């Protein structure tokens, strides 16, 4: 077979579409199984619906940021490859770096939108991006059972310590990412922008917490995190502009 190549070939759209349909099927399969099990455990439907609602609401803003990643990469790589890579396994932070590294290795760059990719360059980039993110796919099935039963044994031995251990694990993750936000403060005032945005998000979250606890406005619970996120992102625009103006 030898078809004329284009980064937006209908063949690529069809292939990406089929894979995404399978991913949706997997999500539906796990959702239905978990839902049935939840009913068996006697968890109320209202509680489950609130999980569904808060998860769906939470997802909207990050999903748009992923869409922006697709748009950014699509200028060079066409739509189907970034669409697939960012909807399956991919994460915004990795895929952009992977695409850039792969494009560099075949003698071009993602920013160079004036020249078209050859079929062979495109195929190289697709292979590098796909193999780069396979670690989780291979490892999760191999170790997650042992890992979970280890955690489980520990929790059974000392329930309170098990709980603290899980909280410490969460805090470890959050701390690493909070720390990274301070990574550019040495570069002067512009490096503080992420810190200012983080503080803005914290303040909005605290306001929401006060509204929920003191004024008993329960419905805010579902929206507290998305609201602090969107609020801080919206305020990032004037914050960035003010900082840039201050530097002159």
């Amino acid at each position, binding site marked *: *077979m030898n078809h004329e190549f284009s980064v937006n070939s209908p063949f690529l759209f069809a292939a990406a579409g089929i894979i995404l349909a399978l991913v949706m099927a997997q999500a539906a399969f796990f959702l239905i199984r978990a839902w049935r099990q939840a009913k068996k455990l006697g968890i109320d439907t209202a509680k489950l619906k609130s999980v569904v609602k808060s998860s769906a609401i939470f997802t909207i803003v990050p999903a748009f*940021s992923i869409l922006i990643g697709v748009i950014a990469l699509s200028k060079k790589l066409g739509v189907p490859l970034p669409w697939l890579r960012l909807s399956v396994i991919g994460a915004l932070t990795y895929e952009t770096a992977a695409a850039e590294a792969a494009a560099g290795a075949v003698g071009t760059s993602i920013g160079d939108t004036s020249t078209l990719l050859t079929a062979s360059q495109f195929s190289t980039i697709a292979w590098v991006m796909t193999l780069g993110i396979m670690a989780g796919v291979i490892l999760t*099935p191999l170790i997650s059972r042992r890992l979970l039963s280890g955690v489980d044994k520990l929790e059974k031995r000392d329930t309170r310590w098990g709980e603290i251990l899980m909280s410490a694990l969460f805090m470890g993750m959050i701390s690493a990412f909070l720390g990274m936000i301070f990574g550019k403060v040495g570069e002067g005032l512009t490096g503080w922008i992420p810190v200012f945005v983080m503080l*803005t998000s*914290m303040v909005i979250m605290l306001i929401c917490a006060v509204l929920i606890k003191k004024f008993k406005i329960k419905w805010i619970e579902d929206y507290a995190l998305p609201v602090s996120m969107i609020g801080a992102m919206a305020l990032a625009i004037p914050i960035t502009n003010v900082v840039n103006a201050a530097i002159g």
Partner: protein
Amino acid sequence: MKFRDMSYDDGTHFWGRIWMWGMGIVLLMFPTAICLYFNAWPEASGFLKGLLAIAPMFWAVGTIEVLTYVPMLGAGGSYLGFITGNLTNLKVPCTITALNKVGAKPGTPEGEVVGTIAVAVSSIVTTAIIFIGVLLIVPLTPILDSPALKPAFDQILPALFGGLGVALIGQNLKVSIAPILSMVILFVCVPSLAPSGAIFVPVAAVIAIAAARLMYKKGWLK
């Protein structure tokens, strides 16, 4: 063993492995199909150079993600989440929020199903939004890609972790002090490490666990 006799957890691991390895093969079929359909084979030198540039780092981060996120997401959430991806910026915070909301603990039967439901719903919503976005890519591009909005989308992670940080620190104030201080000091003093920050998740987790263990032994954590 018959499927009917399997416990829920055994079934999750059984089906999870089938789905995960199956999807892994399906994912490899995409670049394979490009090679066959267009008769376009990767350039050996470019392929090796590209893979060497990203694989060591990505595979290290991937391994760390499995070790850290599997206990948080639970079995079902992990088998699905490690296929649908976007864990740090989406699936993990989403699951933490869902668990907090209903007061379920990770590692319990309730935490397991709530985690799976949260990851599944989040995966379906993300895939749907990106699908609609791709259909509307022509009218959407000038809006989402505008320079005026760029500063907002550049700051998505600080905006996410600020709010999430408050929610979690509020519940574990004592446990949070040591890892947060050490990570902030680390990245301020050695800024060159910040781009590979995910590698430090286990370091921060070990610090958090060690500090928590000490406080627990001293009886500071009830």
